Structure formats: C-alpha cells, structure tokens
C-alpha cells in the first residue's frame, strides 16, 4: 500500500517537473539552428520599378466592379494633415481575427507578411504610410519635397515626436533605420527596395561607413538622394505598411547580424512611435496593443486592440458570438456570414490578379495563338458567377489601375470554345500533348475553379492534368529551377502603379534572377517599359502603358482570369472601419476607429 502511494507521488512529481523544466528558456546561440526565414500569407508587390516622373504615384483605385456591397470610396486625408481621431478618447476594446499561426517577426525590417505589417503599421511610426487607395499620406514626415529630377527627396519630420518611452524621435533614428535596412549583415528584405539610394551598395557591403545619399541637415530633415530618377520611391517606402522607424537609442548596440534574433524583433518591440504599443504577446493566442500615451497624433478612441490567432472557422464562430469584431471572409462562406445579425459585410476589388502562368519556354506554348486559345476556352464569367459568387472582376491585361490609368479595354476574350478550337488547329496543336497545371494546395476555392478550368481546356482539345504541390515545391518549380507547363495562382499589387508589371514581363527579369516567371520575352515591350519609366508626363505615360496593356493583351504570356474581391465582415459595434483597396492595409485609419 505504501509502495503504491510512493509511486503515485513520484508520478505526480515527474509531471510537475516536466512542466517546469519545459517552461525555462534555454541558453542562446546554437551553431546549426539560428536565425530567420520569412513567413508569408499575403500577395505582395515589390518596389515599383523606377518611373522618372516628378509626380508621386497618385490615387490608386476605386473599389467598384462587381462588389455587391462595396461601400463608396472614402476621401483620402489631405496631404499634410495628421489623421485625426473622429471621436474623443472613450476607451474600449476591439477584437480582430489576425492570423492562423504565430507571426515571424514584429520588426519591419524582417516581416514579409501582410498581417505582420498590420501590427507594425499600428505600433511604429513611418515617414509616410499608404491610404485606403494606396496613396502616400504623411505620418512622421509632415511633408516632403521632390526635386524636379525625381532624384532628391527631402522629408520634413514632425516636431516633438516622441517614442513610447518618452525619448525624442529625430532624423538620426530615420537614418539608423535605413542603414540597418540596407546593411547586408542584417538580412532585411528592405535592402533591395532601398538599393536605389546613392551609396547603398557600398554601405551594404561595409565598404563605406555611411550612405552617401542619405543625410540629415538638421534633426527634423532627412534628405535622400537616389542614384537614378525614380518617381515611385514614395510608393516603395510607403508600400505595405511603411518602413517603421526603429528607436536608435534602444537598438544601436545590437550587432547588425544579431538584430533578427533580438527580443525586439521576435517578441517585444517595446519602444515605438505609432498610435499603439505592443503590450503583450501570447504566442498561439493573441497580441495585445494598448494606446500609446506619447503618440504625436490625436488620441485614438479605442484603448486596447486584441489581435487573435486562430483558425478561420473558429474566427467565424467568434464573429457570430461577438467575440471578434473583424474577420476576413473566404468567398465560400460569404452567404453564411451575410446572414449573421449585427454584422456588416464589405467587399472591395483587390489590387491582385488571379492568373495561369504559361511557361513560354515550352515549345508547345511558343505560338501565341495557343495562349489566346486558352483565354477563349475558359468561361471566366461563368466561374466568377457560380464559384466566386460574383465577387471578382474579369481582367484582360496587367494594367488595371490606378485611377488616372484606368483599365484600357482591348480583346475581351469572351468565352468562345469554337474560336479556341480554331486557334489551336491553326497553331497545329498536337491533341496528344499532355499539359500539367500546377496548383498550390490548401485553397478550396482555387481547387474548385481549377477543376472547371481543366475540364474546359480538355473540351477544346488540350489535355490538362492538375498537379497539387505545396509551397516549397511551387517555389522550386516556378522560381528556383523553372520547370512547369501551367501554374494557377493569384497575387500582386497591379492596381497601384502600371510600371509594376515590368517586374513580370521584362525579358531581363527571367526567374530565378527576377520576377518574370513565364520567361516571356518581347523586345518591343521591353522598349515600351523603358520609355514608361523615363517619362515624366502623366498623359504620355498613360499612352505608353496603354500600348503595353495592348501588347500583353494580345500576347497573353499568362492567362488573365480576374481580380478577386477582398471580403471582410465587421461587427456593428466596430465604428470607423473603412475598407481599403488592399486587404493587408485594413488598419490604415486605425486611429479613427471606435467601439460602441
């Protein structure tokens, strides 16, 4: 009997000890197992390549098209005003469904996913940020001046801006952040984006102890000199959620190659200059943000924001019980969510394009009539209406915005299987040629229309097989060692700037060295893109990009499908939410949010 008791006690002790040991952090610095990676879940654009215009890339897009409940586009704040909180500071808590897993980093230099950038947008101050229409708006910089040659940008910082710990934020902090972003030892994804700054390359390789194109004439002014004219530079540094400015006084002694592993980056960015501070991070559960008392702008009315980490099915249940106030809605759940009382559903056109990349190196895809046949063979309108619930707008070229550019219309490729067959016949298509369509796993809606596309291509005589692969395999076959026939995917921020398509269609940008995954090459188009970035006049730029759109529309190096809508559900107690053009930017006016 006593023996039994002893064993039971031993068992209990073991359990207790196991729990305790495991909760103790281990000593740092292993050899084989360090450092980073980047986690991604959002479509993204990179730097818009270099137009030599003097005007900042302006208003981007109007939500519109087939959005059933699209609210009117909201007014962009005036260029030199801080966003003002609409309601007086009232307190209150907002719950937002944030991610399905833990973030990779809270440091703007290292995060690559839209949801991480949402937090950074809330907690860090940036020189400028992006509005709901993907237009630059002032943040830490109250104004900026662009030299006529589009090579020198002068930012005037707001005076008396303080970090959350009360220390002043000056031009020194801005320069520190840019230096760390560019330094190769840091390994920031911003290094490439800021590579156009004069002297960046030398500094990146530690051949210079400062960046020659970066100077602070006084504590409130930062001057950036670019090596080449680039009118899209503001879009570059404001893109995503802006490059958050790091506190030099906190991080200056952290070795550049250790910044990524530092607590500030991995779990506790505890000194920042945004409207909120990160108060508490519970991995697997939530991130708690609290109002920053030292924020330079008007005090936000919401005192605490909880960003919850959970599966999206669970989040939808919590929307129904009111435990979360904001959820991104998959189109397959739209009807169900619409029936939930006290919830408003917003649906706006996104800046991305769903498409089928066609590997132009394959001999059987060389003839453009084959690629046109694919466009004609797919009943895109039918798919949008039946599978996507009408929540997408058809797209026929990569130029779909911004507002001044419009959406030039050429061949509309209306569903026409007879014409598709004709084109295939004219191009001597071999009916025995097998074509493999690569699809990344995990997207139910994409699987559904992927199967329809396969069927419709088979109907016109193209033997298509679907191959499901995970993202690691996609990256290997689409980028690292290109080897595929067709690849069904979506993403990009095409609507922000017409020059963005150069990334995907310039013949000098073939993967793995660049973003041209189809290996489509057209010298005439290369010339047009070169002209486009060298032209300042907006009317002339419009002509050039219309010409580009026309060429791509005719060549269809990839099969354009549609631009899907971003759909969000918001509880009615959540006030002040204004749907942005880009889902990852939904926190763009967070300072104006309120709760009832």
């Amino acid at each position: 009997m006593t023996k039994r008791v002893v064993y039971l006690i031993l068992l209990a002790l073991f359990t207790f000890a196991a729990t305790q040991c495991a909760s103790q952090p281990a000593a740092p610095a292993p050899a084989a197992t360090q450092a980073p990676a980047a986690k991604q879940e959002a479509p993204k654009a990179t730097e818009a390549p270099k137009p030599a215009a003097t005007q900042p890339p302006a208003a981007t897009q109007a939500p519109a098209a087939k959005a059933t409940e699209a609210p009117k586009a909201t007014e962009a704040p005036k260029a030199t005003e801080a966003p003002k909180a609409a309601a007086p500071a009232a307190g209150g808590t907002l719950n937002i469904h944030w991610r399905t897993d833990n973030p990779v980093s809270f440091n703007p230099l290292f995060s690559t996913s839209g949801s991480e950038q949402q937090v950074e947008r809330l907690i860090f101050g940036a020189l400028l940020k992006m509005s709901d229409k993907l237009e630059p708006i002032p943040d830490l910089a109250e104004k900026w001046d662009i030299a006529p040659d589009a090579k020198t940008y002068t930012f005037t910082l707001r005076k008396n801006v303080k970090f959350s710990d009360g220390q002043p934020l000056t031009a020194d902090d801005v320069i520190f952040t840019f230096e760390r972003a560019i330094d190769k030892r840091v390994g920031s994804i911003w290094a490439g984006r800021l590579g156009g700054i004069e002297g960046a390359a030398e500094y990146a390789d530690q051949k210079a102890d400062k960046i020659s194109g970066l100077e602070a004439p006084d504590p409130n002014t930062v001057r950036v000199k670019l090596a080449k004219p680039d009118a899209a530079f503001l879009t570059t540094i404001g893109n995503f959620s802006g490059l958050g400015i790091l506190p030099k006084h906190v991080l200056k002694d952290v070795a550049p190659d250790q910044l990524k592993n530092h607590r500030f980056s991995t779990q506790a960015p505890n000194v920042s200059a945004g409207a909120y501070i990160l108060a508490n991070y519970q991995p697997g559960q939530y991130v708690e943000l609290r109002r920053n008392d030292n924020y330079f702008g008007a005090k936000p009315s919401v005192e605490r924001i909880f960003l919850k980490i959970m599966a999206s099915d669970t989040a939808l249940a919590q929307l129904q019980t009111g435990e979360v106030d904001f959820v991104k809605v998959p189109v397959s759940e739209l009807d169900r969510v619409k029936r939930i009382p006290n919830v408003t559903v917003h649906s706006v056109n996104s800046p991305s394009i769903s498409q089928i990349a066609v590997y132009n190196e394959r001999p059987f895809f060389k003839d453009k009539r084959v690629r046109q046949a694919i466009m004609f063979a797919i009943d895109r309108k039918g798919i949008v209406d039946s599978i996507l619930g009408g929540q997408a707008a058809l797209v026929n070229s990569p130029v779909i915005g911004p507002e001044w550019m419009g959406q030039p219309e050429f061949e509309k490729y209306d569903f026409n299987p007879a014409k598709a067959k004709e084109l295939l016949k004219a191009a001597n298509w071999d009916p025995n040629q097998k074509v493999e369509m690569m699809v990344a796993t995990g997207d139910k809606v994409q699987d559904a229309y992927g199967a329809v596309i396969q069927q419709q291509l088979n109907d016109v005589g193209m033997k298509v097989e679907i191959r499901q692969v995970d993202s690691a395999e996609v990256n290997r076959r689409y980028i690292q060692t290109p080897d595929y026939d067709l690849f069904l995917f979506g993403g990009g921020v095409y609507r922000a700037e017409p020059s963005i398509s150069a990334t995907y269609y310039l013949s000098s940008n073939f993967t793995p060295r660049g973003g041209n995954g189809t290996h489509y090459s057209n010298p005439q188009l290369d010339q047009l893109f070169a002209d486009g970035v060298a032209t300042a006049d907006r009317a002339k730029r419009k002509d050039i990009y219309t010409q580009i759109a026309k060429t791509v529309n005719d060549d269809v190096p990839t099969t354009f499908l549609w631009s899907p809508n971003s759909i969000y559900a918001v509880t009615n107690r959540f006030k002040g939410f204004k749907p942005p053009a880009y889902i990852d930017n939904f926190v763009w006016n967070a300072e104006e949010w309120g709760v009832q």
Partner: protein
Amino acid sequence: MLVYILRRLLIAIPVLIGVTIVTYGFISMAPGDPVTALLDPEQMSTLGPDWVEQQKAALGLDKPVPVRYVLWLGEAARGNLGYSAVDRRPVAQKLGERIGPTLRLMIAALLIALLVGIPIGILSAVKQYSWLDYVSNLAGLAMISIPGFFLGLAAIYLFALKLQILPTAGMATIGEPPSLWDQFRHLLLPAFVLGLAEAAPLIRYARSSMLEVIHQEYVRVARAKGLSEWTVLLVHALRNALIPLITIIALQLPTLVGGAVIIEQIFAWPGMGTLAISAIFGRDYPTIMAINLISAVMIILSSLIADVMYAVVDPRVHYN
C-alpha cells in the same frame, strides 16, 4: 527495482539517438527549407536568389545534412534545443509556452476518459446483455466513429452559438483578469470532445477484461466467503481487471505531450499540437526535432511507467 529502472533508462539513450537520426533524415528529405517554404512565388522572385541563399546560410542550411545533424545533436545533448528557424525564438521557450496548456487539456481529457470509460465498462460487464450494456456499446462505437473535428465543431455550434452557455474557443477570455471559473468554462468543451474519444476504447477494454476476471474461480471463492457483491467486484475482481488497462492508459500518456492537433486547432488551444503543425508546414527543423525528441522521451517513459505499475498492482511481477 531501481537497478531495473536505471537499466531501462540507459537503454533508452541509443533508442533516442536512433529516433533523432531517422526524423532528421526524413525532414531533410522533404522538399523545401525554412526559407523558401514560407515565401510565395511573388516574393521569391522579387527578393532574388542571393537573398534566399544568404538567409539559408544564416540558418546553417548550406552545410551537408550529416554535419547539420551532428551539430544539432551536440547542442541538444548539452540541453540547447536551439532557435526556431522561423521566428527565431528559443525552441525551449516555444515549447515551454505550449506544454502547460497541452498538459492541462490532456490531463482533463484523460480524467474524463477514465471517469467515464472505466465505470461504464465495468457496469456493462457486470450487467452483461442488459439494456445498459447495449447502450454503452452503441455509445462507445459512436464515440470512436465520429471524427473529433466534427464533434468539436458540433459542440461549438450547440453550446457556444445556439445555447450560448460556453465560450467558442481559446483558453481564457482575452482582456479580462484571469479567473479559475473562466478557464474552467473554456476547458470544458475541448476536454470533453477529446475525453469522450479516449473513453470509447476504455469502455470496451474495461468491459472485456472485467468479464474475463469475474468468471474466475477466486471470484467465486470470494463470493462463497459471503462478501458483499460490491466488495467482490471492486476489491477482488477490479484489481486484476485493471492490469491490461494499464497498458492502454500508458499508451495514451504520450498524447499528453504530443497534443491533439485537430482539437487544438478548432478550439484555438495554444498547445503542442498547433505548434507541431505550424513547425512542419514552415519546415522549422529545430522545432520539429525538439517536438519529436520530447514525444520519443514520453513514449519511452510511459512504457517504463506501465511496466513499473504492473509490479505495483500485481505482486507476482518482479523485475531483477
């Protein structure tokens, strides 16, 4: 006995090394790596191959697999599980955050399984072929057959959305001061969903092993001595009926740490299961290795515990 336990623990060391070699080999063979697994094609193409190579080198992924394994083993032997390849936090810290919630959920589920499974199993053995026996058989079959994710979602729908008496998910109400009652309410649904699934096999085993025992001669002797029926069943029969059950229960112990992946996902429970899933999708080698290591240790320990418990319940068993 102590010598026996020590010997078993020593034998466990080569077993553990073997387990780590196999798992390290398998995860290295899977396509991709922590850098590329988490990027989408757009990002990959715009960040460029140099950036990707640089990131891989920073993780030590430029070295050959055997070298990486030996380096990992050396650190692990000294108690250093390394840094996550994804979010770069110490792996030990990541596990530490998760093991508490997982143990809480699993112990609650195990208790429910024991308290539901064994009494029902014994009752249906004692009252064999009664309506109670049939009902418990049927219920057990249902509990095994209904998948956990369905039961979980159905439970959320019924108790959280329709009746609104329990919270949908999470471990506590976020943003409120911690309270035992609140945490208990959050624990109920996932613990029952898990516990009932574990109770089902226990009912079957408890029933059959009890049936075997109550027809033995010594039970008849006990009755002949004039002992009350309950004393006969609970003191004389049950003790022997429990022996095979110990194996079953001990085999469930590793899940205490491994976590219930799907249930944790559905109920947003911040445990080891959700950590394991995201580590595998992110090709987070150090985290995967640590989870595997802990699971292997748990399996070895629980089989040891089972053997020791045999000696405790059955005086005929001796280890020398």
